[in-house]
């Protein structure tokens, strides 16, 4: 049976992010992420002087890039990418050289000390493959993240990217990041 081509992506409305960390803990539980390591995070930018101030939050995790540098530099092919765009680590092939961590423009990977391998956001592939959405997307109180298939023209991500202005981070690295930040 010919499967329709898929391309998963996240659309992020950072303005709604209040740094509540629900996504971070949900990810930790869902993926058994060790203490001290994180697969996703919330970047924080504080500016100004009293009383003219601003704070911006920006959730970030693996961008599941179109041409991921982590996959390119991996010497054993442990870092790989599925056809639907999800970038993964094959833990049996990973030798723990950490080249991919150095090569990721988004610092999205971490080294699992206990296992000696590099690990990262899997976009909750085990949930996604069952038709669910990633844990961070699901739990978010203010629904900052929208998950979906860019190839599906009826999807919410497709709609948002067609109708709203957005940016991607660090496109100059040539990675083709697939986390879309709404403006």
């Amino acid at each position, binding site marked *: 049976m010919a499967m329709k081509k898929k391309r998963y992506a996240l659309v992020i409305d950072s303005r709604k992010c*209040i*740094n509540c*960390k629900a996504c971070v*803990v*949900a990810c930790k539980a869902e993926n058994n992420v060790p203490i001290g390591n994180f697969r996703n995070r919330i970047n924080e930018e504080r500016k*100004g002087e009293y009383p003219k101030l601003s704070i*911006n939050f920006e959730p970030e995790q693996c961008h599941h890039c179109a041409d991921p540098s982590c996959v390119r530099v991996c010497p054993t092919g442990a870092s790989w990418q599925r056809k639907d765009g999800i970038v993964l680590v094959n833990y049996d092939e990973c030798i723990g050289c950490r080249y991919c961590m150095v090569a990721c423009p988004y610092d999205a990977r971490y080294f699992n000390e206990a296992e000696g391998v590099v690990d990262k956001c899997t976009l909750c592939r085990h949930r996604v493959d069952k038709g669910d959405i990633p844990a961070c997307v*699901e739990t978010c109180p*203010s629904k900052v993240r929208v998950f979906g298939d860019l190839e599906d023209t009826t999807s919410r991500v497709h709609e948002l990217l067609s109708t709203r202005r957005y940016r991607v981070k660090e496109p100059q690295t040539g990675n083709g990041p697939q986390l879309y930040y709404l403006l």
Partner: protein
Amino acid sequence: MGTIRMDRRLFLKSAGATAGAVAALQVGCLKYFKKGRSSAGDTKEIPTTCELCPNKCSAIAVVEGGFVKKLNPNPENPKSRDMLCARGNAAIKQVYDPDRLKQPMIRVGARGEGKWKPVSWDEAFDFAAKKLSEVKDKYGPQASLWSSTEGFQEVFFKNLGLSFGSPNLVRHPTLCLASVNLAYSATFGTVPSFDLLNSKFVIMSGANRFESIITPDTMDLIGGVMERKAKLVYLDPRFTVTAAKADEWYPIKPGTDLAFILAMIHVIIAEGRHSKDFVATYTTGFEQLAEHVKQYTPEWAEKETEIPAKDIVRIAREFADAGARALYYAGRRSSWYQNDFQMRRAQAILNAIVGNWDQMGGMVPNAKLPKGEFLFMPWDEPKAPRVDEVQKEFPLAAAGDGVYLKLRENVLSGKPYPIKAWMVYKQDPMNSLPDQAKTLKMIEQMDFIGVIDVQMSDMAWYADVVFPESAYLERTDPVEVMPGIWPAVVFRQQVVKPIHDTKPNLEIVQGLAKRLGLGDYFDYTIEQWVEAEFKDLPIPMASEHMKKHGVWAASGQPSYGKTLTPDHRFVTKTGKIEIFSERLQEAGYDPLPVYAAPVQPPGDRFRLILGRVGYFTHANQSNNVWLHEFMKENDLWINPKPAERLGIRDGAYVSVSSSVGSVKLKARVTGEIRPDCVFMLHGFGKKSKMQSLVYNVGASDAVILETAWDKVSGNAAFHETFVKVANA
């Protein structure tokens, strides 16, 4: 103490590891490590209800091989808006926390020394019953104090205290939102919900809803504000996340919110922008109000609040123009000053005169759902009057909740009668009451202290016996109707069997009751109790439904305006919305809110202001390993100007002292706070070594907060402490 560390990861690893060569072992681990990522065969999904904050969101527990692997939000509950916050997600770690109380323990060293003897439940019950009986025999049943915080199983604990014969139940509201509840009750006869999902103009002060706790209000408002459907004006001496997201932020002078509100009312009435029909039909006392607020001009308020008069006028106009869909938000935990009740009353009045009552986008009286009740055998009412003399000192307050700080004063003075035994359920007075030294003194004068808790709180650390309660994921609890705009029924059922030698509160209460000769009053099981409650629910096959879904919500759109019929009787003395309150007047209080300027800190002092961050909020969660990662210790926010004057550098330790105590913590020099205040977060500096992540780390605000309370509600006033800051 010989305890087995039941960390989940460790367990999984040891389960996955097989004996063999080092490499084989590592490969074995890795195999398991991978397996942990995909669902195993025996996965169960059990709906339950979160207990980590009062919001009670619906969750679905994913259980694999007897372990709670994940909590997912349950979309069926409209009140949890298909989310779980950081704390809700981290509840798993409450179960598998190595610091947890794992068996009953009796103190063997001095109080607070931390020497414990693990005992059987029988020993613990016998010991506590003996001590309680001794106190009862010697001083009477009223010499026992029963303090607790809301929770589905709190009812059993309260009933134990009452059936024991003590009138002295003291609950958390006067450390929380009693002033709000009393002010709205006094005005509308009820505490309404705020329809933030549909409001157009919201003013918030004395609350920090995008940062301090995550509930539906947070989500509704952030959606509205960020999608430009609602405007948010926010007053706070500190630049919080809420301030960052608000349309307008004013660093108001602390304690002057009432002046701002009165000036708004002044403008609205002076310009005739109030909802005249609504005021005429549903309220009483508007004329007195109009006369009363004449003195409170925007120009006067500017001097008090430091908010420009022109902005007050503009905000008042915008607010009144939004009318039915304007809201002055009531706040949540919100007891800051000694005039807190009157400040909240003024908010209520402001809301009333723009006619947002029972309107879409306004304040909506809570819809309720019928629920069955398990009828247990009633006991004699306790005969003695309350030790905190609530009826005399705070005639309008909720007597059943008590007034905590007044109670502590009376216990310390031994008047009107001595208190010699203290039972505590799910509460940590050591950290939730100001002036920890006084609480310690109160502890010292007890003949007996028993604490029921999931973890070794600071209060438990000073107890004589601790009864380990099962975590919520290990219990079945009474059914709860959650009134609101979208009322729902939620059910908390056991997800996993207790992993330690713990018991649900009901069984702890029963164990004690049996030995106190009160067993007959608790002669039922949780299943009987729950089935009785299911009976009157408006749900077909209620029992089956609730066990399968964990929640039931009334479907369809909320119906606004049910109370907007001329013959509707508000639960007030006059049956109307009471702008002018005769009841307050009779009780000797101002019938309309009268402004008195707050005392300002002398030159070398700062006003200490407090706050919460949503991934802890309550002091009992800072030891959760998944949450602790976000903040390892609390710090003192201080504006760069005074910091420079005092030579305080960012990140250096400072001492913060008030008239009652002194603490040390790191300074955070930041422009995100007014120069006349300093700020610290609640929940650190624990004294209990079984809160290992936060033991002696950072500082507890309770140590330096002074005792002060709101005159009408008795609610603790948490922002009335002036502190000196110096390099440590």
